[in-house]
């Protein structure tokens, strides 16, 4: 929604079609963005079939809008999940399609060794073929798309995600936050945030944390988020004898996320595959020093030793080194924290990303810029 809001601020008439969610309205206007939450009336246990079903209901929603007199210049879809609807609508409406890719199946799964992965990969290729422009959220992903799908270079743009800095302009009481989560007030606090999936690399962070405890026995690790890997991660923490010092928050509200980030001493993003790395931006905006795996988009967002620290992916020794690099030198921690905040404020605002997105829209419409 950050991009949609910024596009609306820039004068674009934005209609967002998304899936229903309990408690959310079927239609509402949010900061100038018209949001339609589609009710998917039928389902199917098979995942891919479900995807095609909800795409159909999204197409139906757009069909109703067209019947009511709405008209659109651009169809902008994100990832393969909504690509089928985007392609259908592009042909029905005879309009240009823009596809933003946040990752690829080949990157997420590393192999295409099952029918579902191969199908997703094929739909991704189909999207890149049909789209007039493909937006990749980092330069590394742009090259991945060009090389893997054999897309002409001129068609693929690298344009990062942005961040809403206002989310982080809150005053917090660090001690209260720590007491709420049972964290000693003087404990070095390591924060991690993200979906609990193998791609995010938390299985390497917990062993790194066990090493850190040798030097900082009072340290705590708080992992914000949930996902299918939670049980396995808890087992790793138990097996290493550190479960009592690792806090799993599960899904929590946005305000609580910001509170924890602002109360922490170092944030670690240990991903093994990360085409962009929005969590790094969140940490940088919150003013917590970040330690990131030197992969994909994280390498592009963070400059080593200037506004963060790079560590080797899937390497607990290296991750522990990165954490200690920050915890052991408060002057360095302050230096990278300040630089990181300035970078996020100048380079990753949604308004500047929206301006670049509009340039791409104009190019595909043949308007020139």
């Amino acid at each position, binding site marked *: 929604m950050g991009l949609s809001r910024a596009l609306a601020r820039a004068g674009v008439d934005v209609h967002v079609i998304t899936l*229903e*969610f*309990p*408690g959310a309205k079927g239609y509402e206007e949010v900061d100038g963005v018209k949001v339609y939450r589609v009710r*998917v*009336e*039928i*389902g*199917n*246990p*098979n*995942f891919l*079939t*479900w995807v095609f079903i909800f795409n159909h209901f999204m197409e139906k929603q757009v069909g109703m809008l067209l019947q009511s007199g709405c008209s659109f210049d651009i169809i902008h879809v994100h*990832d393969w*999940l909504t690509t089928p609807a985007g392609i259908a609508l592009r042909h029905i409406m005879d309009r240009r399609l823009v596809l933003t890719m*946040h*990752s690829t199946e080949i990157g997420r799964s590393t192999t295409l060794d099952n029918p579902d992965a191969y199908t997703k990969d094929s739909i991704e290729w189909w999207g890149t073929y049909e789209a007039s422009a493909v937006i990749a959220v980092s330069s590394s992903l742009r090259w991945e798309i060009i090389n893997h799908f054999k897309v002409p270079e001129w068609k693929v743009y690298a344009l990062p995600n942005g961040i809403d800095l206002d989310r982080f302009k809150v005053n917090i009481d660090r001690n209260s936050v720590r007491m709420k989560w049972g964290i000693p007030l003087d404990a070095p606090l390591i924060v991690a945030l993200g*979906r*609990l*999936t193998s791609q995010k690399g938390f299985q390497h962070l917990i062993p790194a944390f066990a090493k850190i405890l040798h030097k900082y026995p009072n340290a705590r690790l708080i992992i914000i988020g*949930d*996902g*299918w*890997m*939670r*049980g*396995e991660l808890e*087992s790793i923490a138990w097996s290493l004898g550190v479960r009592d010092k690792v806090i799993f928050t*599960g*899904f929590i509200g946005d305000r609580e996320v910001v509170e924890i980030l602002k109360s922490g001493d170092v944030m670690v993003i240990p991903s093994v595959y990360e085409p962009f790395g929005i969590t790094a931006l969140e940490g940088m905006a919150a003013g917590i020093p970040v330690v990131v795996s030197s992969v994909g988009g994280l390498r592009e967002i963070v400059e080593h030793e200037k506004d963060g620290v790079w560590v080797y992916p899937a390497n607990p020794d290296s991750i522990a080194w990165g954490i200690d690099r920050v915890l052991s030198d408060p002057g360095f921690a302050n230096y990278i924290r300040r630089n990181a905040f300035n970078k996020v404020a100048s380079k990753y605002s949604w308004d500047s990303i929206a301006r670049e997105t509009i340039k791409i829209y104009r190019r595909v419409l043949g308007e020139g810029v």
Partner: protein
Amino acid sequence: MNHPNEITVLTTLNNIGAIRPEKAISFSNLLASLRVREDVLRSIVEKLVNQNYIEAVDKNGEKYYYLTSKGILIALSTYS
């Protein structure tokens, strides 16, 4: 979430659209969709209810299940 089949139950409920009380699915239909042993599914469902990932409603004396907001987020976390 220790057993992979818990995720299967959550994603199945999501994919069949059981995300609100009126779209809840009976235990017997869920069993037919998943093709697992009844006792295994029953223990998974009980655990997911206790963890507030799914909720049960009574319809004609039978329990029907649907995903909570928290359960939907878990299911969707496997997809991106």
